[in-house]
């Protein structure tokens, strides 16, 4: 190809990135992507409506329909319930990470991102941050609904906030798992369908809505040790004040270990998946 000779041999000057470290840009890019994801979310009013109505219905359903039949020793059922609804809601909410990424992948938006000089981490970080904000909003809705039907925080404000943060950390860890699901699914519906059966046993075979002591022994072996129960238990104790501070902290450490462990495993896997997807 003779035309090659017309190409100037010396490389063109690359417009330098504005001063500031890579980390600063990684954060800035992630926030721009997160902002876009949230903006997109508020643009779909029916999606907001239904994601807000779901936790409200869960609270009311368990408070008034099933609650009468469930006996929790030592506390009112509504107080027991709220931590369960928190965790349940953010769990199913984290499926949004899978759906959102699958959508961006198939509309070609990820392609555009990849050709931009933005931080490579920003797409996944921005997605999971946006979903974290949504989870926080959902938890606010649950708290307000809970208060209306008799839920009362019995621990200090600091302890309650710690409980909320514990749940959010778990939600964030799940988002990274669902990032992999979203990047692997053939479309957004498939992503959602794939996510559901994974979540379902963890969400319901847990201490979220009923004390595990009511379950058969073989099931308890699973329910006691699985992460959802441990996060729910720890959050519940932090919000309500556990029987003894020592016992409560052990549960909290376990819950933290689960979330931390999930993040350590799935963040690198998700990033690897993102690099490979094309």
């Amino acid at each position, binding site marked *: 190809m003779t035309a090659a000779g017309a190409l100037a041999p010396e490389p063109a000057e690359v417009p330098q990135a504005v001063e500031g470290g890579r980390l600063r840009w990684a954060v800035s890019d992630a926030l721009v992507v997160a902002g*876009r994801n949230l903006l997109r979310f508020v643009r779909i009013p029916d999606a907001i409506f239904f994601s807000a109505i779901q936790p409200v219905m869960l609270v009311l359903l368990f408070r008034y329909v099933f609650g009468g039949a469930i006996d929790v020793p030592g506390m009112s059922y509504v107080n027991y319930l709220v931590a369960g609804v928190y965790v349940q809601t953010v769990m199913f909410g984290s499926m949004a990470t899978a759906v959102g990424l699958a959508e961006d992948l*198939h509309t*070609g938006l990820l392609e555009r991102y990849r050709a931009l000089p933005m931080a490579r981490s920003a797409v996944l970080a921005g997605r999971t941050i946006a979903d974290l904000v949504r989870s926080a909003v959902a938890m606010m809705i649950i708290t307000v609904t809970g208060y209306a039907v008799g839920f009362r925080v019995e621990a200090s404000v600091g302890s309650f906030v710690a409980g909320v943060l514990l749940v959010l950390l778990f939600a964030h860890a799940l988002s990274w798992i669902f990032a992999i699901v979203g990047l692997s699914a053939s479309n957004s519906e498939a992503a959602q369908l794939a996510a559901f059966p994974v979540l379902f046993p963890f969400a319901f075979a847990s201490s979220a809505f009923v004390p595990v002591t009511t379950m058969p022994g073989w099931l308890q072996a699973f329910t006691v040790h699985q992460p959802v129960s441990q996060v729910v238990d720890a959050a519940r104790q932090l919000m309500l004040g556990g029987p003894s501070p020592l016992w409560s902290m052990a549960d909290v450490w376990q819950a933290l270990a689960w979330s931390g462990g999930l993040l350590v495993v799935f963040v690198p896997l998700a990033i690897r998946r993102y690099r490979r997807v094309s």
Partner: protein
Amino acid sequence: MADGLVKVFPGRRQVRALDGVSFAVPRGTVLGLLGPNGAGKTTAVRILSTILAADAGTASVLGHDVAAEAGAVRRLIGLAGQYAAVDENLTGRENLRMVGRLTHMTRRQATVRAGELLVQFGLSDAGGRTLKTYSGGMRRRLDLAAALVARPPVLFLDEPTTGLDPQSRQDLWQVIHTLVGAGTTVLLTTQYLEEADRLADRIVVVDHGQVIAAGTPAELKAGLGTSVVSVTFADTATAVTAVAVLAPLTPRPPAVKGVIVELTVDRGPVTATAALRALDQAGHEVIGLTLREPSLDDVFLSLTGHRAGRAATGQPGPDGAPATPAASAAPAGRGPGEIP
């Protein structure tokens, strides 16, 4: 810019999307990469825009290797894809601002730039509306605008007008023409000979991942003629005998396709008139006569002797789309089964 590129998509049937493709685009010029669906055009663009890694060969943009200096390359390029990669739940302005922010402009710079581009692309009235309300042509214009946010010196346009109506296509051509006038280097992929002819300084024809011809539009068309006279007869027997009458009118042998005889000629209307006169004198009844521009199919027919791959008509038809390795590369062979 690209030298001996090879890309193989693994899978049950290995797809050699690119099989040693080389080409160069001199600065400030437009290269048209012309070929049917699945020829490997999009794959080449994806490699050059750092989205995809080549299995062999090297490619560089303005002297920067796309693999080793991907970050530098990304600051020099703009990419407008065949699937308008914009967020339809955001407004036009928000989309452009987002891209501006992601190319590390300040908030103010991004807002100003978005405003400029909306004016330049005739979208200022629609800038505040979400993309859901945009027509196909408006979306493509916004997609192109998004590629230009950072004023890149090199632009990749991957089938910018595929699927657009003729009017929108004309509008977009006008926009691209203006850009090129401003000195941007452009790599354009297209399935339309007409598009490459209108916009490109040089054309590289690719098929099955290989370069099969290269040259200026004039050079390519010289071997092809500028128009095709297509005459329809009542039956194939008449068509066959009519070839003898029509053959003297053109330097290239006429092509017989059933009841249709096609002549590729330089001066269409003159030949058409002469053909009708000759056929009338010879007593052959003509059912129909059309005059058209040579299509990609004709280029392929003259270059390779075989017709272009499936879906050469241009529209991403139901059979064409899944067979395009570039287009289906994203989810290739990965299903929900892989989920942990």
